[in-house]
């Protein structure tokens, strides 16, 4: 579905990602684990075209993405839920979701998005900035889904969200994958969440992928070593 090969990303002269190779299969949920500063967010941003790619390629179903602008990548089927959620805080919940419709070309918010997140229907006239953290996270996912993506990127979705809701989010993500048949890449520091949601767990360390295990053979202890400081 999405193939990253030999991806190098740099801020000016300092290279942060040193040649990543990741292939994501259709309908697969991949978790990328790693401590702060190991390159998770940089990877997400470069996949989205927010940070330029230095060399290497990112392709989706054979189409090269690495030279495209953000909005063109969205049109090709990539969607992004950033760290910190970044919803449009002075726009209403409904308007926030509708910004995603530009890419899909639809006029109205599809009903299944509200089915997934009933709380958003309840609050659709509220300003996005006045929602709680968990609700904002749901809104950011809903906005991403409105673009009808094939691959959904989530950057640390559990950050700043209470534990009971984290469990629910894992369930929601799996439900999204099952009903819409899309692939999900999620970067994460919370191991329990990653083990809960992912089919495959990758570990990124100093800009390189150092582990790549299918869920059923994951050695949680080994991975948590990479996460502890």
């Amino acid at each position, binding site marked *: 579905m999405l193939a990253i090969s030999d991806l190098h990303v740099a801020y000016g002269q300092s290279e942060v990602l040193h040649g990543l190779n990741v292939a994501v299969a259709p309908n697969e949920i991949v978790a990328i684990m790693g401590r702060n500063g190991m390159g998770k967010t940089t990877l997400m941003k470069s996949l989205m075209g927010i940070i330029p790619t230095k060399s290497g390629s990112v392709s989706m179903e054979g189409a090269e993405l690495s030279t495209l602008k953000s909005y063109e990548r969205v049109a090709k089927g990539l969607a992004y839920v950033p760290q910190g959620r970044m919803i449009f805080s002075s726009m209403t919940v409904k308007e926030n979701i509708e*910004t995603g419709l*530009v890419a899909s070309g639809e006029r109205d918010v599809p009903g299944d998005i509200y089915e997934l997140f009933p709380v958003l229907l309840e609050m659709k006239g509220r300003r996005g900035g006045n929602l709680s953290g968990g609700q904002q996270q749901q809104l950011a996912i809903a*906005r991403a889904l409105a673009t009808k993506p094939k691959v959904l990127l989530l950057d640390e979705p559990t950050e700043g969200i209470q534990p009971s809701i984290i469990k629910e989010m894992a369930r929601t993500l799996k439900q999204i994958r099952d009903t819409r048949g899309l692939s999900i890449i999620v970067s994460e520091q919370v191991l329990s969440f990653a083990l809960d949601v992912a089919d495959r767990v990758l570990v990124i360390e100093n800009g390189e992928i150092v582990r790549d295990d299918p869920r059923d053979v994951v050695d949680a202890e080994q991975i948590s070593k990479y996460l502890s400081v």
Partner: protein
Amino acid sequence: MFGDYSIGDLGSIFVMQGFAGLILFSVYVLMALGLAIIFGQMGVINMAHGEFMILGAYVTWMTSNFFQAFLPSLFSGYFFVAMILAFFASGALGMLVEWALIRHLYKRPLDTLLATWGLSLILQQAYRSIFGAREVGVELPQWMLGSQKVTDSIEVPINGIFVMCLTLLITIAVAYVMYKSRWGRQVRAVVQNRIMAGAVGINTERVDCYTFGLGCGIAGIAGSAFTMIGSTGPTSGQLYIVDTFLVVVFGGAASLVGTIASAFSISQTQSTLEFFMSGSMAKVLTLLAVVGILMLRPQGLFALKVRK
């Protein structure tokens, strides 16, 4: 300063000066709308905004001459044609400028200040070369002349009423476009978070270009309205640009209601005070009041309250 007038006189003075202020208010609102849209979205302070307005005024003048020479029978309706032409002329020039100049400077906000100021000088000289240094006046059609007598001492000019209705219509239209249309939603998303707007699939560069065009186009309409209250010369636009910035900052950027409220208060203060003291003293007092209020409310009159 009020001592020399009777209560009745004062009432009439306030009403008539207030009305004169309303025409000024209309021009301010139209100018500030465009400026606020552009500043809100791109963070570009368009120093050439006054020149875009004057382009609209010159287009109106040319249209009026054209109708006088070739279509005298339709002269009474020329103003509507002129407004539309002014909108498109200024809007097209705005889009060209955005494409050729501004978009290369988005990451350098101070440079846009300098670049648009240079652009304003270029445009002024261009007007001087093309239309001549002398100010030109537009002949108004018959139905816009004269005034409506309200009481013995109060008269309101008809063109003033017309300009105000026009401003009202345009403000409503802009509000509709910004808050109800799909395109307006895209603009507001870009204003809030440019990077994220791109990441949900909005072509931010195209939105920028059209927004700049729209802002300049509205300035063009302001120019049309301006021909009724002043004569058009190459440098007429400069007189308005500072006041318009004041309106935008005072109202709170990105707030339509704030822009209108601040345009209203500034133009009314200015206009009423001008009757009782010299124009520059009136300006000094207005500025002092604005500075004082902005020290207490740096975010402007109206700013949205949301969690950051």
